[in-house]
């Protein structure tokens, strides 16, 4: 502690503030920085947390890159995640008997599709959607039938929209949703947990029984029915998940932590020094519960991402585009069991949901080991 308070010994009669040679906020800042550094060291010692952080970083770059790409390189008419359209043209050889459907087309189909005078041996260029992934620039037509060339690194979806653009756009939506849900959950749960632990008595009983009730209700079926009754947009969904999480399980966990804090001697000391209820709760109990709150923030993000993807997979949300909707489109357009043949319709979106959810979960687990000293390996 000596280097924190580099001050001469206290003279009797002197005001305590005057013995500090630097302002209080600077000391606080240094203390905070030091504790962050210590915790960071602990966090870094767990590889899983670092891997999680790395994956989150990659996704963050993806989320930022979408608006930049849209305003610079990508033409919105082609690359817009919802309204873009580009049908890649594929040249196929007209033959009598089709051996390889990717490069050949039989005569009757060709005659029906383009011109009736086409003959065996001619090549026919057919607009293709979904188009398979390819790195090169490919010719095709846009919504108005005009010839446009564009590249589709992850191919196009059954409606002729660029999969990569959809994937990047949805990343932003996922972060946005996760953030709202996590902040709302943690704000409510910390407040409820601290208040419940501090006051006890009937306030505690009412709040905790309410938490029991919410915990009891299975989240997914309730959200399914609610989405039938109301229009649910992305911020509203975040708010709903946040409210249900904040008043439910997370509040119970944070309350038990707050209960441990509220019986510590320094709370009594602060009370004797004349601290009011609000001062005690928000200046003394809440700061000691916050580390655990941040931990549950991570788990809330995991849940929120999975829930949003599930609901939009079921087609119950009114949002323009998300990973769940990408899978929903692939399913509703008949590529449900396409497996490896149309892998770019199902795999990137599903993998993105799973990876982002998993990385927040991993960060949470690593933080758990920082916050809970009991879990550290001997």
């Amino acid at each position, binding site marked *: 502690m000596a280097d924190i308070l580099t001050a001469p010994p206290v003279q009797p009669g002197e005001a305590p503030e005057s013995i500090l040679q630097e302002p209080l906020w600077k000391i606080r800042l240094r203390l905070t920085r030091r504790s962050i550094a210590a915790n960071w060291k602990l966090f870094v010692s767990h590889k899983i947390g670092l891997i999680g952080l790395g994956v989150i970083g990659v996704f963050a770059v993806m989320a930022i890159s979408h608006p930049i790409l849209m305003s610079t390189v990508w033409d919105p008419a082609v690359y817009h995640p919802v309204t873009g359209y580009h049908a890649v043209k594929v040249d196929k050889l007209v033959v009598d008997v089709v051996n390889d459907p990717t490069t050949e087309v039989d005569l009757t189909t060709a005659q029906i599709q383009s011109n009736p005078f086409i003959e065996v041996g001619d090549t026919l260029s057919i607009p293709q959607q979904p188009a398979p992934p390819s790195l090169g620039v490919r010719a095709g037509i846009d919504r108005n039938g005009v010839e446009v060339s564009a590249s589709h690194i992850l191919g196009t979806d059954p409606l002729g929209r660029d999969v990569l653009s959809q994937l990047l756009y949805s990343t932003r939506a996922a972060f946005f949703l996760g953030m709202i849900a996590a902040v709302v959950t943690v704000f409510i749960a910390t407040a409820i947990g601290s208040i419940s632990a501090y006051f006890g008595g009937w306030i505690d009983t009412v709040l905790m029984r309410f938490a029991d009730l919410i915990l*009891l209700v299975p989240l997914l079926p309730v959200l399914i029915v609610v989405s039938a*009754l109301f229009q649910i947009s992305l911020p509203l969904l975040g708010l709903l998940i946040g409210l249900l999480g904040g008043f439910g399980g997370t509040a119970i966990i944070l309350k038990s932590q707050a209960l441990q804090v509220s019986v510590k001697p320094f709370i009594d000391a602060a009370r004797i020094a004349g601290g009011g209820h609000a001062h005690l709760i928000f200046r003394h109990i809440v700061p000691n519960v916050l580390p655990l709150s941040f931990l549950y923030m991570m788990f809330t993000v995991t849940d929120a991402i999975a829930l949003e993807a599930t609901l939009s997979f*079921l087609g119950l949300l009114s949002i323009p585009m998300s990973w769940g909707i990408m899978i929903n489109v692939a399913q509703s357009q008949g590529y449900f069991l396409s497996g490896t043949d149309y892998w770019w319709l199902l795999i990137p979106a599903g993998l993105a949901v799973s990876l982002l959810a998993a990385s927040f979960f991993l960060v949470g687990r690593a933080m758990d080991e920082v916050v809970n000293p009991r*879990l550290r390996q001997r």
Partner: protein
Amino acid sequence: MLKYVGKRLIQGLLLLALFLALLYLLLEAQPGDITQQLIANPQLPPEAQTMLRERLGLDQPLLGRTFNYVVNFFQGDLGLSFTQYPNTVGQLILERLPRTITLFLTATLLSYYLGFSLGKIMAWKRGRSFETALTLGGVAGYTVFYPWFAILMLWLFGFALNWFPLGKFIDVQEWTGAAVTANQLFIQLLVTAFIASFAVLAIHIVSRRLSSEDLGGRVRSIGTPLVIVAYVLFWWFNPNRVLVGDLLHHTALPVITLSMVNFAGVMLLTRSSMLETLREDYILTARAKGLSERSIRDDHAARNALLPVVTSLVLALSFVIGGGILTEGIFSWPGLGQMLLNATLLEDLPLATGTLGIIGILALTGHIIADVVYMYLDPRIRTSQ
């Protein structure tokens, strides 16, 4: 103990009433007015509209309507389905309830049994590559996007490998001209399974009361397989063997898929719970006594590590139920979850809310069972009266 169970039951009923009241208020809170659909037909004269309003109880204040809804629900009157008109919601639910309970029950039991067995071994072998691989697999299973995972499973085992049918409950061709309906046979299957598991339970209880430990072990190791063999033989020589096989064939993949995902969470939790118990003093004592590794692991550590895992059942219920609904939807397995999804998409509100109410009852029952099991397992609570 009975007193505690009774108290929990009464609390549960109160919670259920509260839940149903909230459900009804949700219906009332939706934009527009559902009741106007029934009443505000311009071709009806005003007197008829008033009469209809009174007959449906809509002239009462909000509190009275809510009370009516809850009372009707408890009396089993869930209203009429909009989309399957002559059927009441109660009939539709009763038809599908056994299937959903089976799906939830088998998946939960399977995932808890496997998850607990593997989790304790993981904790025991902490730091080896075996543990790392399983942890990564567990995290992947726990956080995988479930509908996507189910689609991939369906594609792999149903389509590419063609081991299981692609969905539905029965193969209609095999059932044409059958003397029994699928539901009758399914319930027979369930009842016999219950009898068999009670027999196994009875063998376990009796064998633990036997005077010598050796004899008890022998009774257990002979009795349990005997019951299972008897069960299999009973259905093998049953005239409906083919049909039962068809039912099981359709049930297998949804159960396996749901269990795989739930199992991961249980495994991870058991591992961390086990790691905490392994640090206790009584484990050190057990080691000092020179007990075998297996005895320390299974009898001393795992028993105490089980408690938090059972508590987690309460939290996991919501997860299992959500997963069950998605499973039924994706495998088009006609249970309550699929009905809820379809009713929601078709805006059949009585059916959707009725199903949600029943799912709430299922969750509540699971909640109470988990509480009672916890109490039974924790001697500090069991013997405290």
